């Protein structure tokens, strides 16, 4: 096992992102994994969605992660709360003593990134530890024959993901 993947922190933003990131990890020899979902807080202002609602959403996301990695990997999941998502991810990485943070690019138009903040970019530029950006391999590595609905859904934005992945690295 490469030292890089000994203790992997896996930030997951939504179920599709979780599936893409888990797929990307396939074939890599990975030690312990901590999947973390950050619930963005208003920092003194009302949140954009109910915290209880976001916690339910996090459970959905973790279900995807567990389905993909649960069997084979030493897997933990954690919900973290913070006003600054990248900063919160790094705090969790510190606590977990992560050897790397693994993400796949989420793509999205410039507008979407402007509105939501580009977490991936901040992770790469503000990092104090290795951040591994894995390409979203979706249908290809899995073998097209077993492509699930999820993969189908991902097909549309695959080219977009690849594109933005290129521009970010």
């Amino acid at each position: 096992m490469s030292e890089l993947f000994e203790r992997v922190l896996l930030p997951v933003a939504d179920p599709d992102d979780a599936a893409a990131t888990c797929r990307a990890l396939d074939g890599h020899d990975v030690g312990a994994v901590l999947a973390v979902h950050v619930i963005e807080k208003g920092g003194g202002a009302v949140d954009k969605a109910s915290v209880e609602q976001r916690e339910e959403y996090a459970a959905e996301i973790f279900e995807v992660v567990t389905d993909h990695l649960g069997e084979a990997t030493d897997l933990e999941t954690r919900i973290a709360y913070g006003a600054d998502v990248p900063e919160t991810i790094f705090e969790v990485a510190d606590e977990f003593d992560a050897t790397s943070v693994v993400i796949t690019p989420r793509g999205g138009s410039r507008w979407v990134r402007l509105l939501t903040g580009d977490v991936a970019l901040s992770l790469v530029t503000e990092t104090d530890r290795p951040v591994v950006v894995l390409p979203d391999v979706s249908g290809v590595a899995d073998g097209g024959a077993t492509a699930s609905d999820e993969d189908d859904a991902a097909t549309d934005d695959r080219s977009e993901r690849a594109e933005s992945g290129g521009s970010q690295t």
Partner: protein
Amino acid sequence: MSGEEDLAKDLGPLAALTIGVGTMIGAGIFVLPGTAIETAGTLAVASFVLGGVIALFTAMSASELGTAMPRSGGAYYYVNHALGPLFGSIAGWANWLGLAFASAFYMFGFGDYVTAIFAVEATYTLGPVSVTLAKLIAIAGAIFFTAINYVGAKETGRLQNVIVVLLVAILAVFTLLGTLRADPANLPPSNGFGPTMLTTGLIFVSYLGFVQITSVAEEIKEPGKNLPRAVIGSVLLVTTIYALVLIVMSAAVPQGFVAEVSAAGDIAVVEVGERLQGAIMGGALLFGGLLATASSANASILASSRINFAMGRDSILSPQINEIHDRFATPYRAIAITGALILVFLVAGNLELLASIGSALHLIIYGLLNIALLVMRTADPDEYEPDYRVPLYPLVPILGVITSFALIYYIRDDATLISFGIVGAAVLWYAGYARTRTTKQGILSEYILDRSDEMPEPAVSAADAVAPDGGDYRVMVPLANPEHEKDLITLASAVAKQRGGSVVATHIVTVPDQTNLSRAAEDLGDIDAESERLLDRARSDAETSGVDVEAHTVLSHQGFEGIFDAAHTYDADMVVMGWGPDSHGSPGRAESAIDEMTGSLPCDFLVMRDRGFDPSRILVPTAGGPDSDLGAEVARLLGREFDAEVTLLYVAGRDDEDAEAFLEGWADDHDLADAERRVETGDVETAIEDAARDATLVVLGASEQGLFQRLVGGSVVMDVVDDVDCSVVLAEKKHDRSLRERLFG
């Protein structure tokens, strides 16, 4: 509470206060005072103070409920929790639509302010439709604030705090300088009680915001302390501001001034400010009004998404409304629907109508909220531990109920009519949609049904009639002996499958009385392994039958009580359990278990004496009566599931002809017309035992008389169970009969 969860609560006392003040202040002071003074004269001040007092009663009740249950959804959640889903449905719809109506009203005000700032006014006509510029701006504003919440810019939340502080500052200066100029001689004459009350009804829309604080209660730091401060504090603060502003507006300018400017279509508070303190104050108030109406609408849209979430979670609405946006992490569907409603209301309504409907719907919620408090205090469930308690209980909530409902009378008729229409629609919604989906019962009906002996009969049947039936039919199987696991699960799965429900497998571990339950949970090690094996097998057996299954391990001091508790906890509609000398581990254990079965049954019970489960030839002895209904139903379900041959047996007295007719009628009534019918005479027990020789399974209704009496008296049922060679299923319906009735039949 863990540190992580603490981080989830990041609203300080000021932030919580500004949600309330920000939602309220926009409406009242910047839009309505002109109309209020015109209608009520001097007593316009009294209208606003009266509105504040009514709001204060409810604010205290909401605070107590909020500190006891700091959950997302606020008023809806408390009403649903305390009064059950029928009232929950009313409160939820009223709260959601009330906020949408109020938001439309705020946007009207917003449109007025924008046109006033740019000093433009116009009406556009397109065919038969004519729209004022103000209305167009209101529509644009509604789209804008919906979009902001759809995308979820957290900056707006912080901006809200700044806006509120700014507003309070502007109004403080305005009133401080204004009161210096006040002269009682300027006061317009009072127009008496009627107009004052009508005004109160209209301006009550200025007091809707405090309850939105409770809808984000889960995010407030130290809710026990900060929630009541914010809720009650915001009502006191805005009441004071409203009163002072009204005094300035009626006493510091000459009589008739307000009416004059209002008639000219100008915004009264701005004109008064300009006249008293010059153009700068006029400008500040104009700007303030713009911010205030915007912040009110923004906060209302945000709050309404919390109500949608809570309603969806309880299945009062489709949970699909709660989907979170992948990128924005917002409840985008709920927000989009709310935005669409606001647009519809804006296009269809006018300013006063929208304000009045918003008020009426909120008054309905406030009334229910106070009733919810009375119910919680009366039923006093163990988990109800509010940090803040209403003073002068029960006077305050009772006054809250009376004043809230009474004020609805003074709201204009068309608005009241529409509001009651919405309430009626919510009731129909519950009956037609939510009742079969929601599972939460509500403290009130639990309280009534638990005391069905003491409570008046109409109350009991009413509570029973409106109780939710949850949709998902849940069959719980308490497992003890691995040997019977498969047969019990097969039986349960068959029933669950036929009813489109699911199976809940529970392993109830009996812990000696002297062992503390939490201690037992700690050294769960080997229990865990045993449980897991048993539940894993149950899971795979149920999955083989094609039903959904969930599994739980339950620790309990008393085996049978544990089953009752678990049935309650997991919302079971039916319990399928084994019974026999060896079914609960120790000999004789089950006998005493059945002894305990003499109280009321929380749900239907199927008790199986397992001698191998083979449903190919089912015998159903019947004597009619309610418990044979369940037996018949089970036989019918099993017959359908396993393609079984069902035989009905009736042991008649002397008159044979009647017996045939009876059994035929009974079979028809129970959808068992296809079953073979057999009428015997003579000794009941012998007849059943004879008939059972051809059968593989006997299904018996268990409680024509008290089960206990039968046991003690060694009556028919029990002997049959012991004497036949095949498996026997005893079916007993859910009932709430008292212990005495149960014991002696």
